């Protein structure tokens, strides 16, 4: 699992950490059920605040990619579909970024996705 933090980027550091971990889950560098490094250890390695790392982990939990348990730390959701889900979430993020870059409004994008779902 490779995490690169660009302190000059407009993307928040927590989101950068989440993206790196998501990529590692998608590439099977971290396997379903595997424990992620403790937030404190990760913060120390990267020279950032623990809360920054926890914000990243929280985001992944909201996406259903990891589980956060008191005392057990962060564990990749023990579901064989986790890598696929991580790729899917990555794809959605890329889609949104593309739409923003093209000036497509959020509503238009949702309509496009809805159209894609209806025409399957």
């Amino acid at each position: 699992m490779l995490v690169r933090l660009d302190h000059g980027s407009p993307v928040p550091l927590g989101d950068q950490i989440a993206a790196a971990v998501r990529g590692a889950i998608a590439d099977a560098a971290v396997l379903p059920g595997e424990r992620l490094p403790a937030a404190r250890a990760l913060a120390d390695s990267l020279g950032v605040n623990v809360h920054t790392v926890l914000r990243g982990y929280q985001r992944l939990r909201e996406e259903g990619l990891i589980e956060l348990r008191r005392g057990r730390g962060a564990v990749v959701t023990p579901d064989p579909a986790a890598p696929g889900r991580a790729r899917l979430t990555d794809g959605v993020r890329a889609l949104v970024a593309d739409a923003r870059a093209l000036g497509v409004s959020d509503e238009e994008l949702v309509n496009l996705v809805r159209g894609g779902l209806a025409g399957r």
Partner: protein
Amino acid sequence: MPVSPPPARGLRAPLVVAAAHLLACAAFLAAFLARRDALPDPVATHFSGSGGADGFTTLGAFPYEMLGMLLVMALLCTGLVTGFLYATRAHRRLVGLGCGLAGLLGAVAVSVVVSNAGAETADAVRLGPGALGVAVAAAAVAAGLGVPAGGRRPAEPRAKPDAAVEPAPRFVLREGESVLWTRRAGSRPMLVGGGSLLAAGAVLIPLAGWAAGLGLALGGVVLCACFAVRVTVDRHGLTVNVLGLPRPRVRIPLDRIAEAGHRDVEPLRDLGGWGYRAVPGRSGFALRSGPAVVVRLTTGSEFVVTVDDAATAAALLDALAERDRTTAGSATDTTAGG
């Protein structure tokens, strides 16, 4: 291409020591099965300096306790000879010690059975100086037979100068970027082995007492700890720690790293075995055969750790060490406060 010696040669001494201990177990078991009906209950198992019995065990637990003790000693001695296979010049002495202990313990175990056999009660059992003499003689014979059987010290698996370390591809660090690479490393068979030892110890403790089970259980814990590790490359250097725990750990700081690369490693050939290992000129974690991060230290020796995706880890480590060297002079510290 130089041909590496067959591994069987390196394993000869540990096999001889293990065989000696298994013979001791067999001798005890044979004596016990032959005289079981003549043994009192409880059995006298501990004797004072004057030869009188002062410690007793129920007949039911007696064979388990004795076998447990013999097997723990077998594991300890075999482990000792294996661990110091290359690292010591006292190879023959260690093999002699291992075999001698087998002879001594085997003879004592048989003497305990023989002296108990036929006694009305355990209080009357005596283990005189004669039995001790026999045990010492057995130890001498076992050591005398074991040393030549163990053979000469195997050739040290020295670091081969032609072993090609692939230089890490360039990893371009941006200005002020913080980077981390981390991955779990280990060996599933070794973990299964550690788990089984732990389970065996846990079963043995209620059956045969603390002394017999604790060694096995501790061995299992150590094996599990050695074969489930996390490898991390970051601004501190290269760190290997027990999975999920901050310590114990082994850390190579960036300023001790001259160069990092990766190469396929064969544990027995390159480091003399599995686990945390040291041979002259090289140390590190050999958890499985395959890709490994290979670090050349500023002292000239090598540090090795087998881990998947070693190429990325080595590339990053190289870039971080280089950045550390170039910024060591200037006072610019770009790391943000934690």
